[in-house]
């Protein structure tokens, strides 16, 4: 546990960003293993084509557009889900090796493996 490795979920509302489209924040979980951080994001209705993951300046942004596969011209009798795209913004300082981020999307669940940067791994210091 080092104080330098911080993953802070940030709330970014569409209005505050000035984005023209509404977004909603998906359910997600973060866990840690020795060499990597694992992020699991639940993105129901998002296909591989609608998913975009970027990592820039210590900000990992996940955007997923829902691919609705229903015929046109339907009348909604009852709605609980939203058609808004998913957006999740996680900030990490440079504790993650951005070249080694792996992502897998299966059945609406995105699993990310963020390899820790060498500098963030615990190091044993030899004493002379």
């Amino acid at each position, binding site marked *: *546990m*080092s*104080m330098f*490795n*911080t*993953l*802070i*979920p940030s709330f970014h509302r569409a209005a505050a960003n000035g984005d023209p489209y509404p977004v909603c924040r998906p*359910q997600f*979980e*973060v*866990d*840690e*293993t020795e060499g990597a951080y694992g992020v699991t994001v*639940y*993105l*129901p*209705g*998002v*296909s591989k084509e609608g998913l975009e993951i970027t990592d820039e300046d210590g900000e990992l942004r996940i955007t997923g557009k829902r*691919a609705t*596969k*229903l*015929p046109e*011209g*339907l*009348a*909604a*009798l*009852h*709605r*609980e*889900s939203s058609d808004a795209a998913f957006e999740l913004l996680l900030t990490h300082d440079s504790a993650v090796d951005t070249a080694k981020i792996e992502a897998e999307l*299966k*059945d*609406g*669940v995105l699993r990310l493996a963020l390899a820790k940067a060498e500098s963030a791994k615990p190091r044993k210091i030899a004493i002379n």
Partner: protein
Amino acid sequence: MRFIQYTNPNTLSIAPASGFGGRFPRGDIEDQIDWLFGTALAGFAGSARGGQFPVDIFEDKDNTYVRAELPGVKRDAIGVEIVDGSLSIQATRNEKSGEAETAVSFNRLVSIPDEVQADKVSAAYENGVLTVTLPKKEEAKPKKITVSVN
């Protein structure tokens, strides 16, 4: 390491550092058992995991569609049944956290209109979304009657 997470804030409250301490209720045995289970289950009840899931219902002239968001569920762990005019959807998701794997189950009962052909119901699961198509009976479909005027 600093993590801000919003799941299961009560996980540790079952075992406070000083044993049960002053938090153990002084009531009768029933209160104590309720307290014990209430604490143990608090993490599940308060979280968005497990239990219910969002459901949408749509309709066109031929079918009624029920759409459920069930990300990360295997197809063979989904059960769709029609019982007494209700559509029952059950699903189980295996969640891995480190070495341990826990099964989270979901279920939901949706009332469906009477005019559904129960034997022709079909379901599809794609990208974590289950869509159940319920065809309407012929007599329930809107009919166009042409009246010839002489």
